[in-house]
C-alpha cells in the first residue's frame, strides 16, 4: 500500500485560501482538486483518494466476465448514498432494472475484521517504521464507524440498496440500445451536467454519470466509430467544466485496435478488468489466494489534474476478491514462492490481447 505523500513542487497549485465547504461525499484532494469516492475503499486508496471532480474514468471490460458491473454498482451506490444525482445509460432493454442490483452499505455492526483491532495492537510490538502504515489503516477503520456521511462506504453486495435512495428524482436512466445516433445521449448528458456548473465557490453537490458497455453490439450506433469517439470527447469537455465524474465501460474486443487506443487516450483514469481462468494450475501455483480471486483489475492511468507530476504506482495489477462473498476487495498480487524442483519459471510473459489465457501479469 503506497502512502500518499503530497508533493509540493512548483507544478502544484498553491491553495492560498481556506478550503471551500464541501457537500457530503466530497473531500479535498491534492493540487486543488476535489475528490469523490469510487465506492470501493481499496480502489480509492490506490488512486490516491478517489476520482477527482471533472475527470473521465474509462474501464475496459473483458467480454468473458462481468466484473465491470461490480465497479459500476459500487460507484452508483456510493453516489446514491451521498445523494449525489446519477445518470445511468445502458444498452439493456430496461436500465432501471439494474438499479435493483445496487448494493447497500455494510452496517458497522457487521463483523468484518479488515484492519487490526485497536486492543490487539497493544499486545503487538511493531517495528517503529511500520507503525506509520498501520496508523493509516486505523484511521480508516475508525472512520467506518461514523454515521452515513463518511466519505467512502464498504458495500455489501448481497444486500440490495434501500428503495428510498433509488426512488428519488435524483436517478435518471437512459436506454441507448434503440437510438440511431448519439445525439439523444449527448443532450441528456448536457442537461444533467448543467446542474453542476463549476465556479470557485463551495461545492454543494457533485454528479455522477455511468455509461455501461458503450459500444455494445446491440446499439444501433455501434459501428459509427468516429461518432462514438466525438461523443466521448464532448462528454469529457462537458465533465471537465462541471463538478462531476463520468465513468464509461466498454469491451475493447469489439472495437478496431486504433479506436481502442484512441478511446484509452481519452481517459483521465484508465482501469481494466480481466477474467480469471478456472482451474488454472499454473496460476494457482504462481499466486497465493488464487481460489478466492474472481478477476484482475489493472490500473493503467491515474488522473492528474492541475499538475504535471505523474503518479507511479507500486503495483498496477490487483486481484478482485469477494470477501465473505459480500465485500469487494482489491489486493496486491502475492507471488507464491517458486518451487525450484517443479521447473516452472515465473517469467510468464503477459501478452496484451484480452483473450489470452495467462493474462497480463504485471508485478
Amino acid at each position: 500500500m503506497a502512502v500518499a505523500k503530497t508533493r509540493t513542487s512548483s507544478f502544484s497549485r498553491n491553495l492560498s485560501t481556506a478550503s471551500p465547504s464541501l457537500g457530503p461525499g466530497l473531500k479535498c484532494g491534492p493540487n486543488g482538486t476535489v475528490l469523490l469516492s469510487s465506492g470501493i475503499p481499496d480502489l480509492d486508496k490506490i488512486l490516491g483518494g478517489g476520482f477527482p471532480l471533472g475527470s473521465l474514468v474509462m474501464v475496459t471490460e473483458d467480454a468473458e466476465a462481468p466484473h465491470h458491473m461490480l465497479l459500476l454498482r459500487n460507484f452508483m451506490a456510493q453516489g446514491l448514498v451521498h445523494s449525489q444525482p446519477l445518470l445511468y445509460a445502458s444498452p439493456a432493454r430496461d436500465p432501471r432494472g439494474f438499479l435493483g442490483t445496487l448494493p447497500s452499505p455494510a452496517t458497522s455492526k457487521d463483523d468484518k475484521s479488515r484492519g487490526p483491532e485497536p486492543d490487539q495492537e497493544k499486545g503487538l510490538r511493531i517495528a517503529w517504521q511500520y507503525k506509520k502504515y498501520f496508523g493509516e489503516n486505523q484511521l480508516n477503520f475508525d472512520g467506518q464507524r461514523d454515521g452515513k456521511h463518511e466519505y467512502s462506504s464498504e458495500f455489501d453486495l448481497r444486500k440490495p440498496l434501500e428503495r428510498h435512495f433509488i426512488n428519488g428524482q435524483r436517478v435518471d436512466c437512459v436506454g441507448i440500445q434503440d437510438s440511431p445516433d448519439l445525439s439523444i445521449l449527448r443532450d441528456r448528458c448536457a442537461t444533467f451536467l448543467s446542474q453542476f456548473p463549476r465556479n470557485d465557490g463551495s461545492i454543494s453537490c457533485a454528479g455522477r454519470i455511468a455509461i455501461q458497455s458503450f459500444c455494445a453490439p446491440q446499439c444501433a450506433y455501434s459501428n459509427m466509430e468516429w461518432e462514438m469517439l466525438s461523443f466521448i470527447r464532448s462528454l469529457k469537455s462537458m465533465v471537465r467544466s462541471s463538478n462531476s465524474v463520468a465513468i464509461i465501460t466498454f469491451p475493447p474486443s469489439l472495437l478496431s485496435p486504433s479506436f481502442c487506443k484512441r478511446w484509452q487516450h481519452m481517459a483521465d483514469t484508465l482501469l481494466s478488468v480481466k477474467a480469471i481462468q478456472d482451474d488454472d494450475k499454473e496460476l494457482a501455483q504462481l499466486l497465493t489466494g488464487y481460489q478466492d480471486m474472481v478477476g484482475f483489475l489493472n490500473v493503467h492511468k491515474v488522473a492528474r489534474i492541475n499538475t504535471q507530476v505523474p503518479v507511479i504506482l507500486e503495483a498496477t495489477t490487483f486481484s478482485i476478491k469477494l470477501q465473505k462473498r459480500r465485500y469487494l476487495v482489491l489486493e496486491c498480487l502475492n507471488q507464491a514462492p517458486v518451487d525450484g524442483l517443479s521447473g516452472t519459471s515465473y517469467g510468464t510473459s503477459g501478452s496484451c490481447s484480452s483473450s489470452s489465457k495467462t493474462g497480463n501479469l504485471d508485478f
Partner: protein
Amino acid sequence: MAKSIFIALREGALEGELAPALTIKDSVASPFGFQVFDHVLCQLFSSILAGKSPSRGLIVVSFSRSPSFYLELLKSKGISVASSDKRIQILDCYNDPLGWKDQLVESGNFRAPSHEALISSVVTVFREVKHMDKLFNSIIELGRGLVGGGKIRFSIAIDSVDEMLRRASVSSVARLLSNLRSHDQISSIFWLLHSDLHKARVTAVLEYLSSMVASLEPSHQLANGQRGDLENFSLIEHNSKKGKFHVRFKKRNGRVRMMSEEVHIEQSGINFTPLSSEGAINQGLVPKVQFNLQLSEKERIDKANVVLPFEHQGNGKPLQIYDGRRSLVDSKHVDAVENVETNEDGGRGEIIYYRDSDDEMPDSDEDPDDDLDI
C-alpha cells in the same frame, strides 16, 4: 466436456439472469458444426420431452436446412414428433425467406406444393428475414403458442446465424440475440456460426453475446494450407473424421472455464472423447531458466580447441608482449605475431599451469603482478 454444455442449456436461466447462450463455431478446416448442432438439439429436445428441464418447448429457427430435415433427424433418433408436436415448433426461414414464392403464387405462375399434415402443424413459414424485429416477434409468438404465456419457458435453436448476417446488419442481429436472451420466457438459446465466413469483429460480437463458446478445430494443423502433398492427404483424411472440441464457459462467479475434448464423426453420429494427451509435459530436474547451461557436442569440441591468449602457451617459445611502446624492435614484434599464428594452427588446446611457488599464500601482501615474467 460436452456434457456440461447440455447441462447448462438444460438448466436454463435463473430468475433475473440472462439466458445461457451457446455459440457453436466451426471453420472449413474442421467443418463439423452442423453435426454438433444436431447433437445438441437432439439432446436438449429429449430432455425437454422427458421433463428434465424447466423449458417446456423448443423452437427451431431453420435457415440453412429444410424443416423436414429436422423432423427426419428426430425420427431417426427415435424421438417421435407426432406425439410431441406440443413441444417443438420450427420457424421455416429456409423455404421462402424473402417471400418470393408467395409473390409468384399470387401472380398465378406457381403452385405451392402441399405439405403433409404433420409438417404444417409443426412448421411455420417466415418470409421476412430482412427484418430482425419481425423475426423476434414471430419467435416469441411461436414460443408463446407452444408453451402458453406467463412464466413458462422455452428454448431456441438457431440453425445458422450466418444466414441472418447475410441479410441484416450485425447490430440488428446482435439486438435480436440479446433481446432473446433477456426475455423472461426464454430458458436457453444456441446457434451455429461458421467463423471463416465473417470478419473477426463479427465473431467477437457473437462471442461477446454468448455465455458458452464451443469451437471446433482440426486435430492436425495443415502446413500453409497446401493440399497437394501426399503427406497432407492423410492429414486431411484424419481431419475429416475427427477434430478438437474446445469450450469456453463464462461462469456465474466471473471465472472462465476452458475444456477440451476430441470429437469423432461416425455414421451413427458424433462421439466425444477426452483429449488424448499427446506429449505430456516433461518437467526435467533442471529448472527452466532463460539461458542454456548445457554444451552441445560441437560446442564442447570447439571449447577444447580454443587457444588461450596467455603468456604460457607451453611450447617453449619466448614471448613478447607488446606494451604500446614504439621502442620495441619491429622484427621482434613480427616474430611474436608469427608465433601466435603457428599456435592457432595447432588444433588442440591446453592449459598448462606453472605453479609459481609451492608455499605461496593466496592472499599474500606481495603484489601478484610481480610474478609476471616480462
